[in-house]
């Protein structure tokens, strides 16, 4: 690990070992990064005049944060926020209910191979597609409104929750599972008394975390017409009403902070 350099005077000085031990990999990565950066930065086509013009507008926006306008679009703000929160709650609940059976199916120590592969495929699809893309398709199929957002968020919850829950089930203590099985328990009893108590704290923690994520996502679904505060925010930006936009963003930040704080309390209480 340590590399020792022998200086001319014969005194050995210690040097920090490099982060990547193999020299060819170290220099190879360095050269690759430099070449990549050269081409990547070269492909940027920036209109600097437009950017310079924007500096003033950016300053105006920062000033708007000091003086947000909650009043002039108050009804839109309340309405959008209610819709966002309601979408968050319902989709998290439904998402969890669907995730649990899929997580059981995606745990390699519980499910037979065909079911395992099927559930893992659902998880992979849900994780690969960004919420907004799903929302666009859902709006096309179900029409505008919070229903599309609700379905989108429920679907997105599956990829997150089922994957992490399945990993937790796979890591569970085998002793307890075998003990319950030895009593002659049925499959459902086995899940209920051997598996469920072991993964419950993790499930609650993950659910709270997902509630938080779903709220943050619900704030942008409105951009594509899937309900929530996003539509109001988009309008505010389009009209350069930065004070209203600042008010909406501040509201989102405050709600996220409240959610994060309460979820940390609940998680501590569960563990």
């Amino acid at each position: 690990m340590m590399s020792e350099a022998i200086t001319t005077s014969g005194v050995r000085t210690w040097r920090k070992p490099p982060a990547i031990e193999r020299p060819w990999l170290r220099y190879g990565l360095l050269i690759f990064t430099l070449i990549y950066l050269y081409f990547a930065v070269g492909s940027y086509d920036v209109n600097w005049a437009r950017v310079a013009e924007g500096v003033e507008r950016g300053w105006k926006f920062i000033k708007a944060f000091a003086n947000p306008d909650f009043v002039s679009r108050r009804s839109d703000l309340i309405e959008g926020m209610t819709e966002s929160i309601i979408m968050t709650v319902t989709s998290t609940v439904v998402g969890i209910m669907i995730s649990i059976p899929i997580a059981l199916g995606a745990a390699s120590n519980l499910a037979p191979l065909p079911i395992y592969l099927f559930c893992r495929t659902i998880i992979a699809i849900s994780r690969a597609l960004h919420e907004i893309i799903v929302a666009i398709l859902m709006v096309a199929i179900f029409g505008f409104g919070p229903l599309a957002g609700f379905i989108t968020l429920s679907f997105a919850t599956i990829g997150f929750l089922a994957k992490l829950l399945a990993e937790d089930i796979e890591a569970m203590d085998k002793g307890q599972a075998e003990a319950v099985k030895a009593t002659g328990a049925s499959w459902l009893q086995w899940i209920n008394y051997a598996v469920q108590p072991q993964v419950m704290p993790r499930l609650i923690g993950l659910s709270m975390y997902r509630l938080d994520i779903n709220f943050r996502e619900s704030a942008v679904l409105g951009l594509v017409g899937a309900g929530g505060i996003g539509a109001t925010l988009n309008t505010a930006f389009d009209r350069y009403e930065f004070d209203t936009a600042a008010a909406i963003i501040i509201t989102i930040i405050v709600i996220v902070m409240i959610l994060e704080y309460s979820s940390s309390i609940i998680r501590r209480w569960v563990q």
Partner: protein
Amino acid sequence: MMNTDTNTSLKPVWQRRTTGKQLLIWFAWLVFVAIFVACWMFISNRTEWYFVYDAPRIAADIWGRATPPRWSYLDKIWKPLWDTLNVATIGTALSLVFAVPVAFLAARNTTPSATLIRPIALLFIVTSRSINSLIWALLLVAIIGPGILAGTIAIALRSIGFVAKLLYEAIEEINVDQVEAITATGASRWQIMSYGIVPQIMPAFAGITVFRWDINIRESTVLGLVGAGGIGLQLQGSLNTLAWPQVSLILLVIFVAVIISEWISAVVRRAII
């Protein structure tokens, strides 16, 4: 927790909870279900159910239009895909420049002032994390105009909070003995940092970076929808012109790109740990 009740036949029956506790749990469930039903009514009221009943037919219709994907359109996708990759990568790199100092300021054991600077750093992290990268992009497109520069900065702004949060948690969990050993040699503040702290958090730092890069690839695919460049721009254009075969091709490309990036990220993280 265990409670042995005696029933009429005087045979003890095992129950998990006392009656009062059980009632309380039932009541909590009742409240929970009531809230859920109320929320569902709200959504239901705002839904045109006529469209929903029609949904299977429309879904089949879209599927029919979207297949097979227009493979020839691939030629026009390489450039936006390259842009998307750059937005994610340069954005991640840019976020690291800011996230590392913020993380050191926010960690309880390295912050210069726990009463003044730490709360500011934490507020900065929360702000960056609460705002979706699409909202950052929307904001930046309004300020500096459309293009991949806006997308890159949006990705960077969103990632600062994520990286800084995970990094400062890693800094707070380091082994104190090593830091004390370095301090005992009479090392300066910066020497303690580079010999005592940095080597300990390096693996976590690399892991977090690759993890966020992988998330950023996924996020940058949609930034084009608000004008911030990349493959999302083509997606928006194809959707607006109802060119479903192009839409399905783009979705397929995005899917493959995300799977590849996730695979790369998993390989790198396994190599580090």
